[in-house]
């Protein structure tokens, strides 16, 4: 597998210890550790600037995101694993921009004393990509302890995982998550909405519209019998969780299904404790009925 100590982990604000998606970050680290992979958090990392800062000051935005790459480089990190798709795009875009834009590269040399030659060996990978293509399904299958019998899982990618950099999967009809989750025994629910936008930050300014979008997304899974929905993005998770509570009060209890990170389902299947993975007692009860223990050979 070519695994070595040069794998860095970049949590980003949302998946950090104080972030809204801290359980996504924690469960990611837990499963990677459980699978025997040594990942070290990039020391003194900072915000990736997300997509918004670039709109205000492009150069500074690249320098901000790029600082993380420089820090990683100093520790000889070759691969950075990122759970948040927005961070992943920010870092990838910065890396790409340094390669193409001579002016920006000059600035990097000026500020950080680091140019494209130094940074070119770094690869930024979303955790879905990393688990599927670097860790590999064989390795996961070897370590699966619990199989979910007949748990119907709606697989929701959101818009950003394969866009705009569709380096590891089809941008319109990805299947990576389904393949990863197939090791856990769940039945994945297909929806044409799986790569639709969750509304993103529009939730802050136009809740009504976002609710319409999410209602459609959730219906597409629940109509097909989904008993929970998994995501691989902090913002998707947040929006679905928020909308679920509103929709539940407004219409029906049918929206009352667990919204989980895919790493939580995978972690449970690997035999990790629900509290270590940040799965709430309530959610755990709903899905644990579907767990059977697989006898280890």
């Amino acid at each position: 597998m070519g695994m070595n100590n040069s794998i860095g982990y970049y949590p980003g604000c949302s998946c950090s210890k104080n972030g809204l998606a801290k359980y996504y970050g924690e469960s990611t680290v837990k499963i990677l550790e459980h699978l025997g992979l040594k990942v070290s958090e990039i020391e003194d990392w900072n915000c990736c600037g997300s997509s918004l800062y670039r709109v205000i000051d492009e150069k500074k935005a690249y320098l901000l995101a790029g600082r993380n790459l420089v820090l990683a480089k100093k520790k000889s990190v070759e691969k950075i694993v990122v759970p948040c798709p927005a961070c992943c795009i920010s870092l990838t875009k910065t890396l790409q921009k340094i390669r193409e834009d001579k002016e920006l590269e000059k600035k990097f040399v000026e500020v950080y004393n680091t140019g494209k030659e130094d940074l070119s060996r770094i690869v930024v990978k979303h955790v879905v990509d990393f688990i599927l293509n670097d860790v590999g399904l064989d390795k996961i299958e070897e370590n699966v302890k619990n199989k979910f019998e007949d748990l119907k899982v709606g697989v929701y990618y959101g818009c950003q995982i394969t866009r705009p950099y569709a380096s590891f999967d089809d941008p319109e009809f990805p299947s990576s998550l389904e393949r990863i989750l197939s090791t856990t025994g769940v039945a994945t629910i297909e929806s044409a909405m799986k790569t639709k936008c969750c509304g993103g930050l529009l939730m802050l300014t136009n809740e009504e519209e976002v609710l319409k979008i999410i209602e459609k997304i959730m219906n597409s899974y629940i109509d097909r019998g989904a008993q929970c929905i998994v995501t691989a993005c902090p913002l998707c998770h947040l929006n679905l969780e928020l909308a679920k509570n509103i929709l539940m009060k407004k219409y029906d209890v049918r929206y009352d299904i667990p919204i989980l990170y895919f790493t939580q389902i995978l972690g449970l299947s690997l035999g990790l404790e629900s509290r270590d993975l940040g799965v709430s007692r309530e959610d755990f009860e709903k899905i644990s009925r579907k767990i059977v223990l697989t006898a280890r050979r």
Partner: protein
Amino acid sequence: MDPRIGVYICHCGLNIAQTVDVKKVGEYVKNLKNVVVVRDYPYMCSDPGQELIKNDIKEYSLTNVIVAACSPTMHEQTFRRACSTAGLNPYLMQMVNIREHCSWVTDDVEKATEKAKLLISAAVNRVVYHEPLEKLQIPIEQSALIIGGGIAGIEAALKIANSGKKVYLVEKSPSIGGRMAQLEKTFPTLDCASCILTPKMVEVASNPNIILLTYSEVKEVSGFPGNYTVKIVKKPRYIDENKCIGCGICATKCPVKVPDEFNLGLDYRKAVYIPFPQAVPRKYTIDREHCLFFTKGVCRVCERFCPSKAVNFEQQPEEIVIKVGVVILATGYDIFDPSVIKSYGYGRYKNVYTGLEVERILSASGPTKGKPVLRDGRVPKTIAIVHCVGSRDERYNSYCSKICCMYAMKLAHLLKERIPDSTIYEFYIDIRAAGKGYEEFYRRVQEEGVIFIRGKVSEIYEKEDGKLLVTFEDTLLGVVQTIEVDMVILATGIVPRSDAKDLVRKFGICSSADGFFMEKHPKLAPVSTVNRGVFIAGACQGPKDIPESVAQAAAAASEAMVLLSQSTLEVEPIIAEVQQEKCSGCRICVSVCPYGATIYDSEKNATRVEKALCQGCGTCVAACPSGARVMKQNGFTDRQILAELEGILIPLKPRIKIEVTSTG
């Protein structure tokens, strides 16, 4: 005798004279070595212009002529002929391009004039090393090979055969008929496709000049224009064609069902089959891959029941070698595979069809005998037809597939006719209905109540009950909408045959960036190729409908006949030559020749150049490790090229020196 050179400078009206000072050029050239006469004239290519040259050749006893005018591709032949009529070997003439290379590329008179001077000076230096060359005459084999038994191949075969020449028609599937045989009706006249095609298929089978080789493929091609040797492999049908009477008892008795290719998998055929009822030849074929005897060693039911004892499980592939003078490629097209467009769900959603699939559904001989029903047996009441699937789309093919708008509207018309209470939507980018009666057909379909929505479908979503939600942008209303339909038809574009590249290699032709075969000239040689004896017809050259394919087939047949009507073929002598006694037989030239013209002779341990095949590209000459000692390119010998370079560089030399001293 010293060389005596005449130089002729053309004004080309104002094309040259406006930017190149022809008088100044003339003054300069006059003083060059060996030049005995210099003239300029407004149109050198005109009759009086040519007369000037002819008279001078006689009067001044010229040994060489230089014409400084346009590109040699334009008028080299004209001036060669003029020299030839005046008794001068045409290859002692050299053209200098002072139009495309001088006057047309700059407005700077001084620079253009200087460059013209240097180019002529180069020619003056070079031309004294020219040698008289003779054109070669090569006999032509009086027969044609046509590859592809679709409507284009059929049409070309009939035309050539009816003019009395022998034709080999090779088709890789068990029957001729091609794509047209799969169609229900043809736009815009709504003729029944089979009714107009099958008589032609029968004619092919009965024409004594046509040798029909179905279930056969071209394995190897060698030779040159006028003299090709082609190796064809006839795949075993496991049924003796001479004995089979086409009764079909074998198929009735055969226990194996196989998805039917002709019906695009919408139906089943037997392991022993004919592709469709009107197949030509009406000879059955055993599908080795599925036949129980071949897969499990049992059954042989067909053999038992065949009344004419035609079944022969021992049959082997048969190799046939033929000699032909010309080749016409009419290999047609493949359908774009829409399953790569994930958002349309083709292959995942059972009620999303391609246009050709619907064509089969609507056909009287199709899987539902022409009844318009879905896979689940329901009659669709709302239908969405999506245009430009895989065409005019940067992600897949940027070209327009040309036929889809029309066939999409034809399908709408046929569906409306058979399901009068249906609602049919056509989602289009632009309607392309440029053809005789096409725009009128568009109008007619609109009047029949088909709803046209200008905008692309962004995605299709399958509901639990199998109905489809189609999301699109109506660009005329400026809104994004979603409608629910029972059926979606994708008007898929057309793409080159998957084996097109292989044929390009075998026949030494070119393909364009999109993969279709490339014509020699888009306007003036539309069915010719870079290989003089190979022509192309139909959709293998690019998207085309039936009338266009038929017209091209006739054009290709006529081009082929022009060659076949001559007994010999004239070949340019500007080709490579080998001094066989000095050749070491290393065969590097054999490996680099793109035309297969350098041939190794093991007896002599030396290569030779097959004159008729050599295109004079010079690759072998450049690659030969012994260089000019062994290989020579007529018209481009080392001596000629070096002299030409000197002609440019020597006049420049003093000026370079001056510049160096002034800056230094």
